[in-house]
């Protein structure tokens, strides 16, 4: 039986007096590639921030590797790829290699002057993401897809086995998007990483994830990608009636 990585039970989150997430239950096992899809404002990013412990929850429990969010025991176990990747300040002259190296930091080594194997982790993360040719290029000069790869490389350098991605496909061209999805698939199958990705790109997700969760305040659908309902059934699940019906 596969190890349970994430266990969320009856989670509700309220922001500015409005219920964003209601009674969400979700379990993710080791090696799964789970996509959370849903409309804008449906609570996808809120859900990620809540399970990371960065938002207060109204009710429910969250356990990652059996520990509550923000537990010290979770440091270096979670890799985070944020929307902010595409917002990296353009005037910041930081190279891909410098960015990836930041991923090797944690509370135990942040004052270390010695390399202590950090360079090897950086080399490995750069190799895995195929960024060898641009490793000394400033991140600001990269294409959108390469930037996302660089941020994923940073997450890989943490050596975490559970990687969370928040809308990494936003603002990148179709070719880069496909190559990014292939990379995630490879990380999942070859490296045994567990991936939880938030995206509003339903088409892309239905071709790459193992499992799709449709979140709109609460979970409307949770199942294997192949069983994801068609548009009519999805509309029913969301409680949308056919205006032009008979």
């Amino acid at each position, binding site marked *: 039986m596969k190890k349970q990585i994430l266990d969320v039970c009856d989670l509700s989150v309220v922001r500015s007096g409005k219920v964003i997430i209601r009674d969400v239950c979700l379990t993710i096992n080791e090696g799964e590639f789970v996509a959370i899809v849903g409309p804008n404002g449906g609570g996808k990013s809120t859900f990620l921030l809540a399970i990371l412990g960065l938002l207060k929850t109204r009710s429910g429990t969250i356990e990652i590797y059996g520990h509550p969010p923000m537990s010290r025991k979770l440091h270096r176990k979670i890799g985070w790829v944020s929307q902010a990747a595409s917002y990296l300040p353009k005037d910041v002259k930081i*190279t891909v290699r*410098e960015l990836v190296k930041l991923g090797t930091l944690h509370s135990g080594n942040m004052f270390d002057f010695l390399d202590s194997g950090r360079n090897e982790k950086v080399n490995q993360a750069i190799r895995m993401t195929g960024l060898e040719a641009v490793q000394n290029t400033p991140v600001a000069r990269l294409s959108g897809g390469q930037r996302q790869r660089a941020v994923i490389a940073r997450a890989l350098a943490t050596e975490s086995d559970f990687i969370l991605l928040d809308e990494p496909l936003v603002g990148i061209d179709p070719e880069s998007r496909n190559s990014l999805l292939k990379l995630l698939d490879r990380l999942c199958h070859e490296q045994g990483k567990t991936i939880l990705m938030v995206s509003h790109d339903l088409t892309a997700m239905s071709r790459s994830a193992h499992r799709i969760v449709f979140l709109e305040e609460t979970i409307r659908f949770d199942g294997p990608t192949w069983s994801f309902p068609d548009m009519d059934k999805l509309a029913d699940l969301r409680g949308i009636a056919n205006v032009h019906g008979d």
Partner: protein
Amino acid sequence: MLDLTSPYLEWIGPMMPGEVFPYFFTMEMFQRALLAAMAVTIVSGFLGSFLLIRNLSLIGDGLAHVSFGGVAVGIVLGSTSPLWYALLFSTISSILIYEMQSREILTGDASIAIFLTGMLAFGLVLLRISGGGITLDVEGYLFGNLLLIDSADLDLIIMISLISLLTLVLIHSALLATTIDPLAAQIQGLPVRGIGQIFSVVTAMVVVSMVQVVGTLLVTALLVTPAATAQLIGRSFRSCLVLTQIFGFSSVILGLYLSAEMDTGTGSMIALVSAMIFAAVAISKMITSYTSAIRIHSLNEA
């Protein structure tokens, strides 16, 4: 510090150009000025590189004005070293500004602007009420006068510079991580808030040590301009750090030379040279970009 370096400076002195500038290497009063300027340049270059990428270019200016309020309190209370008061006021203000920004009580530069104007006004009102007004000493704090630095001030400036530099070297990786992506840094287990607070205290300390070198009004010149110049041509963060030191030192040495030979204020001349170096680098970069664009265009047409 002066005892240690004086023999070397005296040896270099005769090789320096100009009529007055060599005195910076041979006379004790000028030697103090030179050492203070050097110490402040090294640490402000390092700090400025981080301030720039944290979008805090104006905090140096803001804290410099806050420190003026502290200096005014020190002068009114009859202190022989009002910089200690400036240090206290700036440190408290810097932490408050950081907390207000990180807790999103006030966004952007609003908190800096409030502290800047409030404390400057406080200093001016206090000096007026006490009957002292803007004396030559006070003007030195506003516009900078290296020649006002006595042995106690030099010791304070060197001590602050050393502590600040050591702290920055120690936290520089974590500081960069928390600057680039605070959320990712927090998830990695880095103490984002603690690092931010330490950085605020170091910023306040460095700004205070700069007040007497370039003056309250011109702190930004040494804190931000060399770092901004470096960002124009640097290719990595590390190269920007090195280039910042080169531009900072060039500004200080050239500024001291010109102010000595032309009999102008040291602070204002250093600031002017710093801005001119920025302009020269920016213009040459624009020309280079323009000519390479023309070359590519003509190659495409051919």
